[in-house]
């Protein structure tokens, strides 16, 4: 999923301060799963903002709405009437959601209520970890299903640097050394030979380095 976290309330207040009628728009997919932008979070944020602005003596009307996905026009249109009666939209979607909402509603300011952090998983309750940088050319088969580009602090492709100790990355004691994990797993799988050979430099053209990416699916073009 796309993992995100809510921005600090003070930052949100500053963004929405110019408006008297605000729509807080939640997203019911990834950011709901990571407790950042689903229906519940929309309700909590709306209450917090109402209370806070009331204390400040500022009048603001806040409407709440959550759609299934902010990255799909079919769902976005369900919010069209709500958007129309407000001065601005505070989106609790990921960066893609915010931009897709903005794309569909040209005349309404769309503000980000979340910081989009990474593509990841909930490793255990309350702990989300980054697993993929979307490099566009997956080589997980080689590395036993553990991505060194995402999970090694130095994106090393040819084994651990000199800072790996007791399975821990030198950069942060709370981070596991991806290479220790890769080696352990390849040993278990009997595939350590995968990483004995030299691995050439990565072609980053398929990543964001090649510029904003597009995917054309001819079979889906109507």
């Amino acid at each position, binding site marked *: 999923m796309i993992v995100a976290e809510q921005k600090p309330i003070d930052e949100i207040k500053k963004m929405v301060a110019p408006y008297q009628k605000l729509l807080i728009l939640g997203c019911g997919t990834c950011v709901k799963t990571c407790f950042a932008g689903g229906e519940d979070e929309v309700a909590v944020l709306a209450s917090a903002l109402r209370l806070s602005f009331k204390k400040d003596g500022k009048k603001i009307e806040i409407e709440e709405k959550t759609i299934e996905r902010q990255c799909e026009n079919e769902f976005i249109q369900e919010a069209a009437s709500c958007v129309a009666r407000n001065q601005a939209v505070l989106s609790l979607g990921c960066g893609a959601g915010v931009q897709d909402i903005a794309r569909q509603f040209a005349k309404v300011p769309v503000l980000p209520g979340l910081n989009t952090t990474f593509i990841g998983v909930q490793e255990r309750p309350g702990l989300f970890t980054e697993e993929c940088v979307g490099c566009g050319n997956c080589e997980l088969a080689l590395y036993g299903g553990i991505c060194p580009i995402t999970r090694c602090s130095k994106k090393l492709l040819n084994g*651990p640097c000199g800072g790996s100790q007791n*399975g821990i990355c030198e*950069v942060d004691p709370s981070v596991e050394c991806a*290479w220790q994990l890769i080696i352990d797993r390849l040993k278990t799988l009997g595939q350590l030979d995968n*990483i004995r050979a030299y691995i050439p*430099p990565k072609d980053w053209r398929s990543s964001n380095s090649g510029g904003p990416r597009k995917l054309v699916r001819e079979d889906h073009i109507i």
Partner: protein
Amino acid sequence: MKTSPSNLQKTLENGKFAVTAECGPPRGANVKVVRQKAELLKGVVDAVNVTDNQTAIVRMSSIAASAHLVQMGLEPVMQMVVRDRNRIALQSDILGAWSLGIKNILCLSGDHQTFGSQPDAMNVFDIDSMNLLRMVKNMRDNGKDMSGFELNEAPQMFIGAAANPFADPFEYRVIRLAKKIEAGADFIQTQCIYNMKRFKEWIRLSREEGLTEKVYILAGVTPLKSAGMAKFMNNRVAGMDVPEDVIKRMEGVPKEKAVAEGLKICLETIAELREIKGISGVHIMAIEWEEKVAEIVKAAGLQK
């Protein structure tokens, strides 16, 4: 144009025990600092490593400081990390370095920027140190850049890599050494050795794989100044292993004798290293203590 090989290469090829030291460029543009450090090392060692923004702190570039050393008649080992430059910049800098008379390169990943004074910087890591080794080797042996373009003059670098026998996983350290040799390393400089037992085990395994026949290994040493330094290095410096008995030994002497004890340990280490089959030299990393190098070299009987 055929240029003569580096002194370091000649020394090693002639089977002489090589000695290298380190010169950290200044945090500023003052060339005097480089020259003062270089003076302390001139005629003392075979080559001098010039660090590349070590610990991710901005310093005079390793290329510029290396070029100053060349002007003074010293031979630099230019360190180059992949943290700050993509492949385009790396290749360009290697061509430039060669044009300035720099003949040795040490290919490194580099300390992560979060350790330095500007943790807010973006890192690069376009390629890794293994890829860098292969790149320099291809430039040298095939005369081509990474795109396959034929260079009008190929940099004939003597290529070095680092090895840390004290990092984990231990069993992979020998595989990694093999990979570095295969990628292009002519010589290896190791992390500072305090844990002799583990170092000997790493060398033994490397010997068994035939690796010590394929590469010159320069064993790293750093003289300790105090018990505090020993503990700091063990606990706070990434990839360092200072065993308890070494720390105890430093703690066991009065403060005013700590420096002498540190030197003694360093000399004992060098003496022991010279007896190990497969060790071709020592790399003395006297951090911001360049004046001690000549003393260590002399006391170890390694004068040039």
